[in-house]
């Protein structure tokens, strides 16, 4: 059993060890969502990553790769030595996903607004082959500024793509600050509803609600589902929470100690 705490600790450790700025806030906001997905929802075999009957996960908000890699590592896709190459010269584990199905990474992302259309193509392929598999695509609320997201949203609804489940990690921030687009006159869930999707709104840190949402998505046979998950950017490290300075930043030795304390762990001296 992988705990949310394990994932957060792995994120912080990896960010600290690489010594570079990393997208830590958006990695921390999706921890519970990914943990429930990989632990209880996805039909997958980490020991056989390219198992043909697996469900597929696409990290469309590719900059949050650190959270994804922490999860892949803790679920057994690759070992600690591999993870330790994160953001080091020549590594394939960098600040955005690089397609490598043998490591559990199904697609290259980083350019926002593209993962959902690739995911829709995968879902339509499964439908054409009458395969009982599903595609899960994680997006950010800032990413939903990209027009291409809505091109896909419209087609997925039109085609009744029931095998497609989007998750929006609505952590309310983008690079420059608040995601003001969806803060006042437009509600993100409402837009998805207008596009004809089955919309489930949840607290994205409440494991029971997350579990229920994925079950409801699976049970919904009449088109695509989006789980709009209300989350806190930087969740779990108190001084990073809803603090967009931690959208992309470097963890120094002192900050690393603070991170461990925030996670309720005793910093080890030296």
């Amino acid at each position, binding site marked *: 059993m992988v705990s949310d705490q394990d994932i957060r600790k792995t994120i912080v450790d990896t960010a600290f060890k690489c010594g570079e700025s990393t997208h830590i806030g958006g990695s921390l906001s999706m921890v519970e969502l990914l943990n429930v997905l990989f632990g209880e929802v996805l039909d997958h075999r980490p020991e056989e990553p390219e198992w043909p009957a697996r469900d597929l996960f696409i990290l469309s908000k590719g900059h949050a790769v650190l959270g994804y890699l922490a999860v892949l590592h803790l679920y057994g896709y690759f070992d600690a030595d591999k993870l330790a190459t994160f953001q080091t010269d020549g590594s394939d584990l960098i600040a955005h996903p690089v*397609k490598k199905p043998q490591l559990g990474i199904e*697609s*290259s*992302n980083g*350019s926002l*607004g*593209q993962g*959902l*259309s*690739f*995911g*829709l*193509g*995968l*879902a*339509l*392929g*499964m439908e*054409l*082959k009458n395969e009982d598999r599903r595609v899960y695509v994680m997006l950010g609320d800032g990413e939903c500024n990209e*027009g*291409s997201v809505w*091109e*896909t949203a*419209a*087609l997925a609804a*039109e*085609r009744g793509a029931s095998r497609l489940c989007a998750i929006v990690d609505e952590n309310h921030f983008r690079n420059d600050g608040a995601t003001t687009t969806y803060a006042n006159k437009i509600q993100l869930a409402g837009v998805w509803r207008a596009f004809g999707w089955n919309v489930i709104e949840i607290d994205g840190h409440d494991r029971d609600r997350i579990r229920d949402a994925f079950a409801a998505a699976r049970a919904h046979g009449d088109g695509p589902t989006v789980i709009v998950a209300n989350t806190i950017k930087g969740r779990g490290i108190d001084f990073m929470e809803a603090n967009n300075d931690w959208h992309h930043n470097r963890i120094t030795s002192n900050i690393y100690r603070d991170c461990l304390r925030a996670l309720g762990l005793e910093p080890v001296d030296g």
Partner: protein
Amino acid sequence: MVEISKRNSRAWSRIGIRATYGQALSGYAAENPNVIALSADLGRSSGLDRFSKEYPRQFINTGIAEQNMVGVAAGLARSGFDVFASTFAPFASMRASEQVRMNMGYMGEPVKLVALGSGFAMGFLGNSHYGLEDLAVMRAIPGLTIVSPADCAEIYKTIEACIGYPKPVYIRLTGAVNCPVVYEEDYDFELGKAVWIKPAADITVISAGTTVGHCLKAADMLAEQGLAIGLLNMHTIKPLDKEALAHAASVSSLLIVVEEHMRAGGLGSAVLEHFAEVGAPRCRVVTHGIPDRYGETGAYSYMLKISGLDADGIARLIKRETANA
């Protein structure tokens, strides 16, 4: 594969390039349920009307949303389907260029992206619909194979070669109805291997797309005047057939690249880049394409004429360059 004959080639030419594309793809879809056609709401403009009615399971109109079309095509291609996604050239290559880069280039998903009406083929629809820069954009993306068929028969050959081909391909369709026939009988077609339409001579023309047919007419006109011209159909613009270029450079003293594309970044650029790298000590290389501006517009035949890309214009170009030698 349908028989290539004088009769068929003429019939295809009459219905035109885009209708032939749809007809050819329908033929392959009938025998191969793995073939999927995607269109960004240009099915009726690309002969896919019949395809969509006869093989609805294998056809998706993605709506007027080219970026999404390329992403969806990539997901389907990853799932093992032979996906042909089509829209007009500027929308395929520029509206969706970053999707092409990520999905077809970076990830290498083997989508076959079909650029309809490239060059001046859209006639009165004007510069918004012309494909004048698509090769420059697509050539810069690593991993893409770029093909531009010379005539309708070569469209059949291209589609056949692309089915099961494990790499992404950008298929550039120039030409319209009544495009010149290049092939009236079967021939060997292989991606990456240029075809000698007329053997290399002291003056050799290199071209691609339906411009090859206009070059052929020009060469025939000049032959009547006693001037032998070599003609190479470089149907695959990337990767270039370097052996064919080496042969041309060893035989010819003048190589003229003729294309329906901006001079920047197209086949002419590719050939010049190649010779800049390997040298062509015996021969001079000149390129003829479209000048660096958005000019006046008109019917396709008019555009070819004012650009010196019809047979008369190409013949004049060859004579002029020969005189300069």
